[in-house]
């Protein structure tokens, strides 16, 4: 159930795609589309739900910045009641992986939702993007140009620099790709029945061969896989052991922003913000007795380890936690490392498939017999 076509455009990639989406709205193929768009003063980019095709302008399908994980938007929209109208949403591959996990966690209902996943050359930190001022257009162009260059841009976030799943997978309905494309050409692929229906309604597409694109994707993911493993192995030596770990979090101010921005942290009330962690003085004094003093506030490391325990088997490595950290702790690399190890044990990969069962809710008789390290 997959197929690939090409959109040729002389107006530039973003504009060409914007016209394509506008037609989908005009022809009532979709009732709405959520797509990254510039603020009126062109200072920032965020997701906008468009219903009026005439208002569809200034969009950035290949936006170089990711203020939050869009899977969270879908969760809020569809958790209680599925959408009545047909809504498309443009996602980065990591956002799509989060969607898969949240569907399995019963937080997203995909009825009437059409998932468009784009190729991603990485995104820059929101701080860098918002402060880029005059260079912003150049940055946008740089990101677009980098799709078919051999190296990742140095400006991109750590999580993106080591991401090896930066293209649409078969979980998505429709893929929008630049890897392996010629100038002014975009690949449009479909991966599901729903996707096939939408693509068949798109105008001005020409047929394409899969092989050039597949080769480009393979080459990128192989290269990034290597970078990722090298990075994580090096990183591991920096955080292994309770002392290094404590020191890694030493400047944490306990704001819980990492939790708020994490698409997988779906709880309405975080356990670590519950009454369980309100202590009477007697308790604190007893603890202080143990070694004569007590660092306050308490439970800082417990929060991170507890959160890790809860969600790391579903960690999709988007790095939103690191981007949200006001004191610059790279929380994401730690969770990605632990997630990789935990998921390997359970032969699970977060976001890989809708069918693979969540490790925490599955019992296998032989599991954990060879838990290493």
């Amino acid at each position, binding site marked *: 159930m997959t197929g690939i076509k090409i959109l040729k455009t002389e107006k530039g990639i973003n504009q060409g795609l914007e016209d394509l989406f506008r037609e989908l709205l005009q022809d009532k193929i979709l009732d709405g589309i959520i797509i990254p768009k510039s603020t009126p003063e062109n200072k920032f980019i965020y997701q906008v739900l468009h219903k009026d095709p005439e208002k569809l302008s200034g969009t950035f399908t290949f936006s170089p910045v990711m203020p939050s994980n869009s899977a969270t938007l879908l969760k809020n929209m569809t958790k209680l009641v599925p959408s009545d109208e047909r809504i498309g949403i443009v996602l980065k591959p990591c956002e799509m992986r989060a969607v898969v996990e949240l569907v399995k966690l019963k937080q997203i209902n995909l009825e009437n939702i059409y998932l468009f996943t784009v190729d991603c050359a990485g995104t820059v930190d929101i701080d860098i993007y918002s402060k880029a001022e005059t260079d912003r257009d150049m940055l946008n162009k740089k990101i677009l140009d980098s799709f078919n260059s051999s190296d990742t841009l140095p400006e991109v976030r750590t999580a993106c620099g080591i991401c090896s799943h930066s293209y649409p997978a078969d979980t998505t309905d429709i893929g929008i790709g630049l890897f392996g494309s010629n100038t002014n050409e975009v690949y449009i692929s479909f991966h599901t029945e729903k996707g096939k229906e939408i693509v068949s309604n798109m105008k001005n597409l020409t047929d394409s061969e899969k092989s050039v694109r597949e080769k480009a994707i393979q080459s990128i993911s192989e290269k990034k896989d290597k970078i990722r493993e090298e990075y994580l192995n090096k990183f591991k030596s920096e955080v292994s052991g309770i002392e290094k770990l404590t020191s890694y979090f030493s400047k944490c101010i306990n704001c819980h922003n990492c939790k708020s921005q994490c698409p997988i942290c779906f*709880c309405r009330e*975080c*356990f670590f913000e519950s009454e369980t962690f309100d202590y009477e003085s007697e308790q604190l004094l007893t603890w202080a007795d*143990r070694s004569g003093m007590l660092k306050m506030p308490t439970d800082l490391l417990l929060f991170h380890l507890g959160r890790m325990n809860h969600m790391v088997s579903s960690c999709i490595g988007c790095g939103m936690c690191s981007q949200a950290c006001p004191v610059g702790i790279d929380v994401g690399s730690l969770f990605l490392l632990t997630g990789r190890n935990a998921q390997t044990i359970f032969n699970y990969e977060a976001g890989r498939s809708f069918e693979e069962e969540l490790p925490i809710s599955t019992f296998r008789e032989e599991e954990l017999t060879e838990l290493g390290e």
Partner: protein
Amino acid sequence: MNKRIGVFICHCGLNIAGTVDVDALREAVGKIRNVVYVKNYIFLCSQPGQEMVSDAVKEHKLDGFIVANCSPTLHEKTFRTIAIKLGMNPYLVEVANIREQSSWPHSKQPDYATKKALKIIKGTIKKLERNIELYTQRVGLTKRALVIGGGIAGIQAALDIADGGYEVLLLDRKQSIGGHMAQISETFPTLDCPQCIMTPKMTEVAQHPNIKLYTYSEVEEISGFIGNFTVKLRQKARYVDWDKCTGCGECIAKCPSKPLSEFNRNLCKGTAIYRDFEQAVPSYPVINKEACLYFQKGVCRVCEKVCPAAAINYEDKDIIKEEKIGAIIIATGYDLMPIQALGEYGAGKYKDVVDGMQFERLLASTGPYAGNVKRPSDQKVPESVVFIQCAGSRDPETHYPYCSKICCMYTAKQALLYKHNVHHGKAYIFYIDIRSNGKGYEEFVQRVQEEEGVVYIRGKVSKVFKRGDKLVVWGADTLTGQTVEIETDLVVLASAMIPSTGSLNLASKTRLATDKFGWFSEAHPKLRPVESVTGGYFLAGTAQAPRDIPETVAQASGAASKVLALFSNEYIESDPVIAQVDPEICNRCGYCESVCAYGAVKLNPKTRIAEVNEVLCEGCGACAATCPSGAISHRNNSRKQIFDMISVATENYDQITTKFDK
């Protein structure tokens, strides 16, 4: 929260006081916040001990109290009952187990044992401070039992419950009840034939006004909980209208299709329209669709032509029936492991290598040769028979580690019956050990060895192969250290007992626990042997483990008495120490539902908020531990309480000076 807490420390004779410094302990406990009264006593569970507790609760106006003694499985109920008598909510009484968890395991470290005992008590005080009053919930019950499996276990259980005055449904997937016992020739050690001792029971079942028979039927689905099950039963298409059938057997006599007879363990042919055996209950036949010429080739219909009652109905369909049930007895029995897996003994390759049940059929007067032992390959009377015990049992490397328990005895019996049948024949038994511990069993084996001249060889057989029309058995006699070669006509393998096929399927439908071999698990190996882990389900016979007929019958009556005790209640009280959902926090992820072994937690189909069925919940806490946001908690084991207890456990040990410190 309880502000006035009392603590009673039991010496348990010297079980606790012989190790723990109970005086230092009393002093240290007295200093803990909210403790207003501490008292030591030599045996708290004794009558004066209980009275002392009762008096102290009144005199010191305690809000709740702790008994520091043995495991709560022993005396938690004792002291909660005291609370009830005093008008105190019983869930404000907690046990601090300082015997099994401190004085016993640390008997050589009295100082440490005392310090640990203090932590256990202090942690329990912390828990009790946040305990809330809980109340049991009452629900009605259907006083009607379902017995699954119509072998001797199911028959006995059904009769006992029916005699107790309650309605019983007796289910069997075969055409007739009777199970394996009906296949056996004679039973050890008394040599009664089942026709003599079992068919009267089968008839009693058929005639009992309180028993409803469901043969040729299977469990389709079970929902609900103790006292309130809804069971869907699939009555398989019989193609014979049992309301019209008189059981005359004319159709069976005339049926031209001859498939192998399952009841005779494929040793001879039966018919496509059949009943399991002559004395089958019910006596009405069914059609085996796979073997029937009409169903397979569209021609024949002989049974229809000869039936005087016009009972044949080729259009018959499976029927699903729904029944309300209060208690379920699992009596699904056993099978023998397929001997094809024992290739070294020539099993599956040579017709004259048979399993124990096949030999029973060869011996049986109702069997293929009317009780004259002949070997299957050429119907020759076997001049000698070699019996091999522990074929697959006591073999942890390749098959099953457990002892199948009945083989030593039935092999001795089979050798005896063979010798009675073929007077000049020779019988050899290869064994590892002879296990004959039952009433009259050892005497029986002695008789077989000494009076019947059966040759017992201690050792294992390595190989069975064919030479001419004989089988050659190679083995070792471990008593003499010699290798043994025996040329014989027939080899009988006492193959391992395994849970009956389909019992795993039933286990998954009922969510009942089994061990790794598939035997149903009892609630406690010694003290609750006939109850399953899940409320409302009871176990009888070999569904639980290999056992012989007397044990099976005793256990079946035991299970029936448990059902009768349950039915003597007008309602069921459920333990309130179970899971509870905070709907404000629940985020509908359904983790709880996926980890609940009892089907007690479900997302509400409308709101998708988790809900706990209070009667079904066994209070295991799996959901509470899994819920990431803490929306589910275990009553009186809230996260806060558990954190408090862990926190106490991590405190320093220097809060008490014991006499051992000096």
